[in-house]
């Protein structure tokens, strides 16, 4: 469970990491409140690498494989930034978070990849969570993390319970449309949807949509244009599953299921005026799911969709132009519709 250098990987039992680093990339945006509550409850000090910056991205790009997708490169940068500041890195290996599905292969190999990135990487704590296995095995994986910090089993159980409550709370806040970072910190902030005139679904992985640097504050910009935003967390799970059940072949990537399900629910239930699909360059599963979503969208009802492919070379100007053009188009369509209904009213 602990990955160290290429030696035997075994450490003495008395090794007690105090400062634990959590790189702020990839699944950070999904599970950080859970991890943080768990680790802090066990008495560890949690160190984040903070928001993505130009320096972090450049460091990641220089170390990561050229062929990796953008979020993995960003993650490398975050992990490298924590080097030397912490006793251990916390990078869980999430193989599957639901029966019969997988997460992305990159997440399966992530701890090993990070360890191979540099010679002086701190030890990596990587419990394997795999829902193909029994609940007991997953519990044991979590328990073994706890044993690194404390010998008291009750304390580990309590930490797990508290962590789970924090996670539920975070998910509830996201579902209510809190601003992601505010939801993570628990500060009452702006809402993504406040009943403005236009409503746009921003669909994409959390680590793409919520990262303010790589997407150049897409969410803030959209709100600045007077647009309400729907993220995939705001679409109820029941609606997502309904849409997914209709597909001829089930998608087997867990986070893609969420994405495709909520996108299709937005289309078939006409929840939004337009959709922005955010993909990072070289994302494997998204290249497949995009074909599926695009075709199903056309079949279900033509809600306009803008696909934004982001990579480390994406220029701000190009991105803004496209978003502005898209929103302008939506506004025109919307006004056209309003005009029509007014005329119809007059005629009646």
């Amino acid at each position, binding site marked *: 469970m602990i990955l160290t250098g290429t030696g035997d990987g075994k450490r003495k039992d008395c090794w007690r990491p105090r400062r634990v680093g959590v790189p702020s990339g990839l699944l950070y945006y999904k599970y950080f409140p859970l991890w943080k509550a768990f680790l802090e409850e066990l008495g560890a000090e949690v160190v984040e690498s903070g928001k993505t910056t130009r320096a972090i991205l450049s460091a990641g790009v220089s170390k990561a494989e050229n062929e990796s997708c953008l979020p993995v490169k960003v993650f490398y940068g975050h992990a490298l930034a924590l080097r030397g500041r912490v006793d251990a890195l916390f990078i869980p290996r999430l193989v599957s978070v639901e029966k019969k599905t997988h997460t992305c292969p990159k997440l399966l190999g992530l701890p090993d990849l990070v360890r191979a990135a540099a010679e002086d990487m701190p030890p990596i704590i990587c419990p394997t969570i795999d829902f193909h296995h029994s609940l007991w095995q997953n519990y044991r994986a979590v328990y073994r993390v706890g044993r690194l910090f404390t010998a008291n089993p009750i304390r580990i159980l309590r930490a797990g319970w508290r962590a789970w409550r924090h996670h539920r709370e975070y998910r509830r806040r996201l579902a209510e449309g809190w601003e992601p970072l505010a939801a993570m910190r628990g500060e009452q902030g702006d809402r993504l949807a406040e009943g403005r005139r236009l409503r746009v679904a921003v669909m994409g992985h959390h680590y793409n949509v919520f990262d303010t640097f790589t997407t150049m504050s897409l969410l803030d910009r959209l709100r600045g244009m007077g647009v309400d935003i729907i993220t995939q967390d705001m679409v109820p799970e029941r609606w997502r599953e309904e849409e997914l059940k209709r597909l001829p072949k089930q998608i087997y990537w867990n986070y893609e299921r969420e994405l495709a399900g909520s996108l299709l629910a937005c289309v078939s239930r006409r929840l939004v005026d337009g959709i922005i699909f955010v993909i990072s360059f070289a994302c494997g599963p998204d290249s497949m799911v995009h*074909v599926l979503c695009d075709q199903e969208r056309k079949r279900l009802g033509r809600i306009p969709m803008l696909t934004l492919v982001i990579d480390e070379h994406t220029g701000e100007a190009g991105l803004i132009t496209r978003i502005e053009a898209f929103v302008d188009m939506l506004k025109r369509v919307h006004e056209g519709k309003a005009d029509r209904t007014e005329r119809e009213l007059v005629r009646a």
Partner: protein
Amino acid sequence: MKITWPHMGSLDVVLVSVFEEMGVEYVLPPPSSQRTMELGARYAPEFACIPLKTTLGNYIEAIERGADTLLMIAGKGPCRFGFYAETQRRILEEAGFPAEMVALEFHLDRLGELVRNINRLKQGGSWVRLLRAIRFALHKAFLVDRLEQQALHQRCFETEKGATSRALRRAYEVVRRCSDYRGLREAEEECFALLRSVPQREAAEPPVRIAIVGEFYLVLDPWFNLQVEEQLGELGAWVERSVYLTDWLRPSGKNPILGHSERESERAARPYLSHFVGGEGINSVGHTVLFKRAGFDGVLHLLPFTCMPETIAKGILPLVSRDQGIPVLSLVIDEQTGRAGVATRLEAFCDLAKYRRRQSGRSLRSSELSCA
């Protein structure tokens, strides 16, 4: 119903044999060409991996020749390959190519669907006959693989460049023609004699030994990997590869050609990559370690651009290379890859491997070559 399937190395020898035996109509897609690649790249998503694009190109060319049923394997991930059939079906439908995709999913809880699909494909032929046909075809595949291995081992000794490859192509034809087990036994002798009859020179020093690992489609299909095997052989390298068609067709148990099992390679990979990452990712790492133990001088790692499992392997192989002391060259191949660039890198890589062997002062008797 005219069935077609994409090219993958010598897969057509096997499938043609099965369909002929069953008396089922089929269309062989034209040999892969630049046009195949262009067609695939035109319709496929931009950063889909290259096997998706090329197999899509094969399908389109076969549909142009009258095929209406497309054969593909589906799976459960996490590699994208399991989703090919669904994505390609949608792409072809969207582009207006009239064909039906039949995805065979070999999974216990999809058994009913698999049986229904095969039942439809075999068009009334009996199950016993089908199983016999498959068994015979697997024997053919095994023979083809051993022939290919022989060619890999002897190409570096040929006096006239390309003679081995020519002999191998003639051997394929001989295997393709035979229709019963007796014929196959005769073909075996004939083919090996054919390969052995290629004039060979005595080598002054034992050749440098290079192993090819990586994503199976690229390793198996000489057209898409830019004939790296031939190129390496002609550069004077004794080549071995980690995967043969038989390994792929008989996915469980021991690797019949090379002799090490999946589990062995996974165990070898464990110090570097401790979890399955889909596709062949973990095996690429494991085979590199195993080939080092078998005394190879270098490892060539082939991967399609954006391939997820192999990109992970590529990120970890530098660590393996440092730790084990074996040079590794990762070649990323996509529709833009040029032949000259690959040739230059292979040449430099061979030179490097040779130089390192001389430096380490290890001398290898040629008798050791037979026990790979």
